[in-house]
């Protein structure tokens, strides 16, 4: 399934190449390390020049995507964050078994995880492929 995928390059198998440089943050997570993940994302968001409010939004968005992977996916995943000149890009990879179940897993019911992410991110997309599901969000430095 694809959503808003035209807004950013399609994440492929080698996502690092898509961004042209190694991520500023590359962190594995599971249910016990979401706190550490949030702390790391907050530090990087703030360092990348996002405002206090947008940094909090970024933390919430990454948390919701990671929690989704933990609760409804493989139980663990990986976050990569790039601080580009104009925006912070994040990818949350859930290496769970892809397939039909993904549609339900990434549902955007009002008030629920992905719905919140779409409300706060400048861009949000979810792609499922052979290697799992990749959710990507973009937070621009100055909101248009």
């Amino acid at each position: 399934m694809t959503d808003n995928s035209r807004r950013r390059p399609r994440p492929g198998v080698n996502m690092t190449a898509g961004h042209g440089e190694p991520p500023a943050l590359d962190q594995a997570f599971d249910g016990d390390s979401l706190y550490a993940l949030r702390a790391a994302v907050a530090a990087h968001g703030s360092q990348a020049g996002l405002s206090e409010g947008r940094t909090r939004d970024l933390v919430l968005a990454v948390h919701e995507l990671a929690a989704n992977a933990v609760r409804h996916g493989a139980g663990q995943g990986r976050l990569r964050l790039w601080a580009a000149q104009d925006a912070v890009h994040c990818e949350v990879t859930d290496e769970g078994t892809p397939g039909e179940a993904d549609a339900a897993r990434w549902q955007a019911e009002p008030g629920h995880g992905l719905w919140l992410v779409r409300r706060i991110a400048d861009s949000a997309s979810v792609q499922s492929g052979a290697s799992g599901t990749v959710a990507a969000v973009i937070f621009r430095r100055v909101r248009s």
Partner: protein
Amino acid sequence: MAVGADAQITDLTADDHACLTFGEPEELSDLTAAFVRDGLASGLKVLWVSDSAPQRATAELARRGIAVESALAAGQLTATECEGRLLYGQEFDAGRAMDWLTSQMAACQQEGFPGLRVAVDMSWALRPVTGVEQLPDFEESVAAALADTTVSVLCQYDREGFDPVTLATVSAFHTRSVAAATYYADAMLRICRQYAPPGIRLAGEIDYQHAEHLALALTEAIRFEGDITVTMTALRFIDGSCARMIVDAARGLAPSRTVVLHCHPGIAATFELLGAGDMTGISLVGTHDR
């Protein structure tokens, strides 16, 4: 922890000599306010020997919905500091402190009150005070003086400040130990009941992994009547599922009841995303980052 709690602050009766342990100023203010509120409501005289200035102590009680002005004017409520009551020139003498307490008990009887409630913040004993070793003697004398009276004393000990041995020693002289009902506590998160105003208090970071503890705390808070206050001023993060649980709880209440959310802008933003800003039955009260 050396002292376990066996009673709720709202359970205390006439001649109790209760040992309250608290972990943060917010908890102390909350439990003291409940002790004062229930005492005033029963027509008792209430005395609070606080560690802060009396004006600050009464302002804190007023903030929690207690009619401080009228109680002070009627002589039913007194807020004082420990100097001149328990301490004299930063010196503690168990006998002299007991003289003060018994004089207060006699005065209360003369004034015609059916009983007296005294709350004493013991934080002074954490400072270099001469005679502090007499503290257990004092607590033992208080226990003896209260038996079969209508006077209750609530001694307040900071459980982070006092060592476990001292806490265990003094707690033995109390009829009850009191602490805030805690639904969950670890290094990252604390979920407690709040007594004045009634509700719950969340501190730290909360996400779906503790949703069941939050659900239990909310369910118990809902059982009481009236508005429910959720204090989140010390909460740094709340995820969508926990925020949604609080919003849903508010939605399920009778129209006459309101859930009051006290939080910093960062936490308020998450509730606003869920539409809490203009939902009837929810009042979002912002506090600014300190």
